[in-house]
């Protein structure tokens, strides 16, 4: 156990050294972040599949409850219930295109985690940084619960709970709780909680920040502990995951179509129906819901008493409660969409719910088709202030301000960038799969996946850490 404590102290110090210029001290956040007993209690596991390389290297690290897929290297780090999903890493022999550069890959890309602590964090996608095309690095970084590191190399960063960094290389930066950043590259930035920022230099710039007092009930820090409605919600549903993690083999649910994939670490409760080409990822929670053809529920999603008509994307960490989605709706990372049995949220087709949006209503709400929606919405008036039709946004050529949202640049490019990305997500997830076109995605390929578990030292100096190991084909 001593070694685990030493390692944790070292990581905390390393992150603080990187953040010293911002005068930011992570210590108040980390007091109870790692529970040494839990680091010993949970096994780690990894996927074996013919579709991705099996190339794992663990050294002087704790990996409790974490999942690994593809080519990953973890050194001097502590991971707790984190998902390190290397199924979209670039492959040897492929070409990575960035602006006018075509970068040939001479080796498979690796997720390389070093001197970092990741707590219930998702790492996914691939490095979008042309300077490090073959290495998706995460160095000297501390990420709190339900953070997403998505295609974003990190060096010396702190991510608060529910923070997402998407397609952005971040250096020596603090990303506040419930903030979403997609900006290519950031340095020495201290992002306040509840900031939503999507910036493509010379193309468009979208910015919104929650009023601190409005975000407070949902996510806040209390005596160094993350707290709030989002945590309470997850806590309430935590028990259902016990069974899927405790059992080695679960019964196969026979009503799932052959082209759909249901992860064995997902929770599916009655009466849920799943149509063709649906993808349900690990740690997703479905209850009394219907997922239409090509819909997906990504990691840490909760879909309860809801219907998804088809080809809907529920991105990592999004939550839908008492909601009805028409076709082709995108619900971004960590969004929280909650209606009630009497007051449902109805979202029209082709709507884009921006990442980290909170829709929390107690009166029925109908979002018309083809709208972009952001921020905090508690009623129809908030919706007016926090949405715009995609048609109107497409006409913007210079700038646009609505409520607390600021937009500068070309609206058509912004809409196209989102729509292209949604289409890409559906494609890689296998939403459009049919046998004739040989266009299998995660939903189909994940069926060829089996899992192995690995265990930590349970006694002695190394208690809670895992033996150094290399697992390769």
């Amino acid at each position, binding site marked *: 156990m001593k070694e685990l404590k030493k390692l944790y102290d070292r990581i905390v110090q390393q992150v603080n050294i990187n953040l010293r210029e911002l005068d930011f001290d992570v210590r108040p956040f980390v007091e109870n972040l790692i529970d040494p007993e839990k680091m010993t209690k949970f096994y780690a596991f990894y996927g074996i599949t013919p579709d991705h390389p099996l190339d794992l290297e663990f050294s002087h690290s704790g990996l409790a409850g974490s999942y690994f897929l593809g080519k990953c290297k973890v050194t001097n780090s502590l991971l707790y219930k984190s998902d390190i999903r290397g199924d979209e890493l670039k492959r040897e022999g492929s070409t990575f295109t960035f602006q006018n550069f075509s970068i040939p890959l001479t080796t498979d890309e690796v997720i390389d985690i070093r001197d970092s602590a990741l707590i219930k964090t998702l790492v996914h996608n691939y490095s979008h940084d042309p300077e490090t095309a073959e290495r998706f690095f995460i160095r000297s970084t501390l990420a709190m619960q339900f953070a997403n590191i998505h295609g974003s190399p990190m060096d010396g960063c702190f991510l608060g709970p529910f923070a997402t960094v998407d397609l952005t290389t971040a250096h020596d930066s603090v990303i506040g709780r419930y903030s979403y950043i997609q*900006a290519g590259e950031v340095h020495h*930035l201290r992002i*306040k909680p509840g900031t939503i*920022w999507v*910036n493509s*230099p010379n193309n468009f*710039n979208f*910015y919104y*920040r929650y009023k601190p007092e409005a975000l407070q009930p949902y996510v806040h820090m209390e005596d160094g502990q993350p707290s709030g409605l989002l945590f309470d919600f997850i806590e309430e549903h935590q028990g259902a995951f016990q069974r899927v993690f405790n059992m080695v083999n679960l019964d196969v649910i026979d009503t799932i179509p052959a082209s759909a994939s249901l992860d064995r670490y997902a929770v599916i409760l009655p009466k849920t129906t799943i149509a063709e080409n649906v993808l349900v990822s690990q740690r997703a929670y479905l209850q009394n819901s219907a997922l239409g053809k090509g819909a997906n529920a990504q990691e840490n999603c909760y879909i309860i008493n809801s219907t998804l008509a088809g080809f809907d994307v529920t991105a990592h960490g999004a939550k839908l409660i008492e909601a009805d989605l028409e076709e082709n709706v995108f619900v971004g990372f960590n969004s929280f969409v909650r209606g009630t049995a009497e007051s449902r949220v109805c979202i029209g087709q082709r709507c884009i719910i921006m990442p980290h949006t909170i829709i929390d209503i107690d009166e029925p709400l109908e979002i018309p088709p083809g709208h972009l929606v952001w921020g905090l919405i508690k009623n129809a008036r908030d919706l007016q202030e926090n949405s715009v039709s995609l048609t109107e946004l497409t006409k913007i050529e210079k*700038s646009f*301000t609505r409520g607390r949202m*600021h937009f*500068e640049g070309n609206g058509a490019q912004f809409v196209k960038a989102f729509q292209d990305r949604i289409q890409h997500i559906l494609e890689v997830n296998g939403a459009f799969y049919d046998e004739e076109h040989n266009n299998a995605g995660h939903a189909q390929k994940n069926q060829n996946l089996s899992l192995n578990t690995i265990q930590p030292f349970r006694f002695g100096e190394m208690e809670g850490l895992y033996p150094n190991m290399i697992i390769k084909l």
Partner: protein
Amino acid sequence: MEHYSVKDLMVPISEYATVPMGTTLLDAINVLEHAQEAYTISKYQHRAILVLDENRNVVGKIGQLRVLKAIETRPDLDSELEELKSFNFSPEYMAHIQELHRLRGPIMRKEDLKNAAAKKVEEFMQKPTPGEFVSEDASIDTAIHQLVAGTHLSLLVTRNGQIVGILRIADVFAAVYHEMKKHDIAPQNG
């Protein structure tokens, strides 16, 4: 310009309007007004006030622009614009947002003026930056370079680390003009 040194053109600190930290905006304006009235008997016209700490060291400066800024400042606007600056919005967009805020309400409202009058000088004074200090023995050429490079309206003149005067851009400009006239350097026609 080499035969001029900074001390030849500076205003001695004893001639300058000063206020201690903790002075309100209204009191500071009163001091400035009195200094302006005294202009009739002093050769220096005052457009700025120096703020002194308890040891009578200069810790800040308040010009007319700073006073207007203190009156015009709305905390919500200021913090919003400050934030947007960090997020790659263009100066044009920032100006646009400022204009939008202007349209929402006039500045010259009694209540706003009253609030501004109660502000303490340290809340809105301009703190001196390293490029704003110049030795009294430095040449005017050096001072001109500092004024231009830093776009300063004045420099704080030091002797042995102590501030002994202010070098104002107006006085430097007058000296340059005088020098041009003296040497008859007008371009020749044809």
